[in-house]
């Protein structure tokens, strides 16, 4: 804050720049919202430049009729929460093992695991598909979640976080008679909450937006997530682009995440700053 007071010019400049940048980042969202309320089949340069000749909910009604959205919402929620719940467990365990325990081949194992980060997920689609078929889980919620239950990124994140916790805290707890589970429950995990929040945000937003894997491993609308529903609006090559409908559908898909972000904005930003993630 001190630097701002020194020079009002610099502070005004910073504010102006921030506003411009924020507007640039907001553009797609503003465009989507405006387009979704315009009458369908009206070109952008007709009527009022922002709202068209009238404001209508027609696009929302049309988009809603195209796919079983309510079911898709439920499936997306099951998919991201089911994935996250197991991930939190596995990354805590593995992260702690890599951070605190000494065993033969630990560093080698860590490097092997990190190598995974370099493999693009698309490469594994055929193998994962075959695995799900063999496990008889094809076309179920389990098949959606299972490939993501381990997370190399998450393990690395938790390992670094746990290493940052002073060993003395754990030792003190042990002297007070806490067993390992209690140490985790009352010392290690509570001190790592910001890291968990960051991980949750990244995990939820990436799986919420996932298309390829759900499309490959599910066939029934009863288990498919939102992205597959949105895809229907996007694939209208025979009739030309239906921007209004497409934008309305896009807003259906992003609304829950957007509301979450607005509600927990401060928390989100804090956790990113705390973990040094950008």
């Amino acid at each position, binding site marked *: 804050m001190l630097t701002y007071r020194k020079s009002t010019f610099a502070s005004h400049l910073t504010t102006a720049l921030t506003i411009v940048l924020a507007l640039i980042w907001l553009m797609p969202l503003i465009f989507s919202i405006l387009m979704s309320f315009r009458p369908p*089949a009206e070109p952008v340069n007709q009527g009022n430049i922002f709202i068209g000749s009238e404001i209508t909910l027609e696009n929302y009604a049309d988009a809603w009729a195209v796919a079983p959205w309510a079911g898709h919402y439920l499936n997306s929620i099951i998919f991201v929460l089911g994935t996250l719940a197991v991930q939190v467990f596995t990354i805590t365990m593995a992260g702690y093992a890599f951070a605190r325990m000494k065993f033969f081949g630990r560093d080698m194992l860590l490097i092997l695991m990190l190598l995974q980060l370099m493999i693009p997920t698309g490469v594994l689609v055929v193998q994962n598909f075959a695995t799900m078929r063999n496990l008889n889980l094809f076309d179920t919620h389990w098949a959606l979640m299972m490939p993501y239950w381990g997370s190399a990124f998450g393990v690395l994140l938790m390992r670094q976080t746990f290493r940052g916790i002073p060993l003395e805290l754990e030792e003190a707890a042990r002297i007070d008679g806490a067993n390992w589970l209690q140490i985790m429950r009352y010392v290690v995990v509570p001190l790592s909450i910001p890291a968990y929040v960051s991980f949750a945000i990244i995990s939820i937003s990436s799986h919420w937006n996932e298309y390829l894997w759900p499309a490959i491993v599910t066939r029934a609308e009863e288990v498919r997530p939102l992205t597959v529903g949105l895809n229907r609006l996007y694939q209208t090559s*025979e009739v*030309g682009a239906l921007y209004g409908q497409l934008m309305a559908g896009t807003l259906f898909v992003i609304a829950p995440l957007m509301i979450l972000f607005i509600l927990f904005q401060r928390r989100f930003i804090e956790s990113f700053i705390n973990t040094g993630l950008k």
Partner: protein
Amino acid sequence: MIRHKQTLGATLVALLMLVAVSVMAQDKIVVDFYYPTAVDGPIDEIIAKYEADFEAMHPEIDVVPAYTGSYTQTRDTIRTEIAAEDVIVDVAVMLATDLTSFVEDESIVPAQQFIDAMDTADAFTAGFFPAFLANSADEDGMIWSVPFQRSTPILYYNADLFAEAGIAVPTNNEELIAAAQALQTEDRAGLLLPVAGTFPTWLYQSFAAAYGQPIVEASPAEVFFNTPESLAAVEFITKLGMAEADGGFAVGPMGGSAWGDTPTAFTSGQAAMIYHTTGSLTSILNNATFEVGVAFLPSGPAGETGTGYGAPTGGGNLYIFAAAAPEVQEAAWLWVEYLASDTVQSDWGANTGYIAATVGAWDVEPLKTLVTEKPQYLVARDQLEFAVKEFDSYRSIDVQGIINTALSSIISGNVPLSEAQATLDAAQVQIDSLLAEYK
């Protein structure tokens, strides 16, 4: 250990029983059907209606439809299953132009074997518009796929503008330019040709045909891209957007218009004429506030024998997969036969805007009534007489990529027309080297 073995044994027995029970429960033949969509609207409901109707006629069959995204996504999903050697799909709608690649890797079975087994084999084949079968047959005339959701490009024109100006609807390329120049104003293009972007090949094919040499003929091992006819076609398309000072016609934007925006531009009066697919006819008729006219794509010189008319076909056909068990293939064929029937084609065409693929479908309700109200559909149908095979070749995805790149570079003006022939030649060399092993 012994106890563990017993548990394992018990589990195995239980599992086996479970499998046996589930097999017994599945006395119906299950047919997995994949379909993409390329039009808007509640396609699922329409398919579900057909499914119920079909299963009422064939109670022993259980059709399981699954929406699989775009044509490309559908192909990718099926390719994934084939790569994993675990093919779930039994019958699917895929692009008519996917034929060569799927024949080549032997993942589909020819429809011909089922047609031959029919009592009405000849009538079945003759029932389709020949243009729609052009992409179904291989070089030897064997039919592999059955037309289902098909389309073709046509000329849409603002009939009110033509009437006001007292201009006749263009029937050839010269009249097309004259009309476009007469009708264009400051904020209205004379003609929008949606060739901008990454896929100019489709409409280019209609010009190549109109100039007398379609891009492909019967053989999938031969592509005609650097011919004089092809050059003339590319020059014509490019000149539509070029300034008159540079020798162009200046009736639309340089590089053409964007595919998705063109129908909206037309219905809102920003273009006097457009080229677009029949698939958008329904929405154009619904959205336009003026009288919409539909005509054949204007003709080119066409050499000595041709009519000069020409348009490719588009859309998807039904394919049956080789990995399905014989009795499942038989059941899948019954479903294909049902979807290709006059009744279903009539209903499908009227509800989606695709051109019904059988001749008989046009004499059946609801299409029969629809065309009396909206005779524009008949123009699209009648143009099929002059339609040509759509681009398909060996290595079709790679070849099409080469063609798209070459066309885009010329049409957009990045490569001057003086170097167009050289660009086509270079592309032809690339194509021929890809196709060399098939000749």
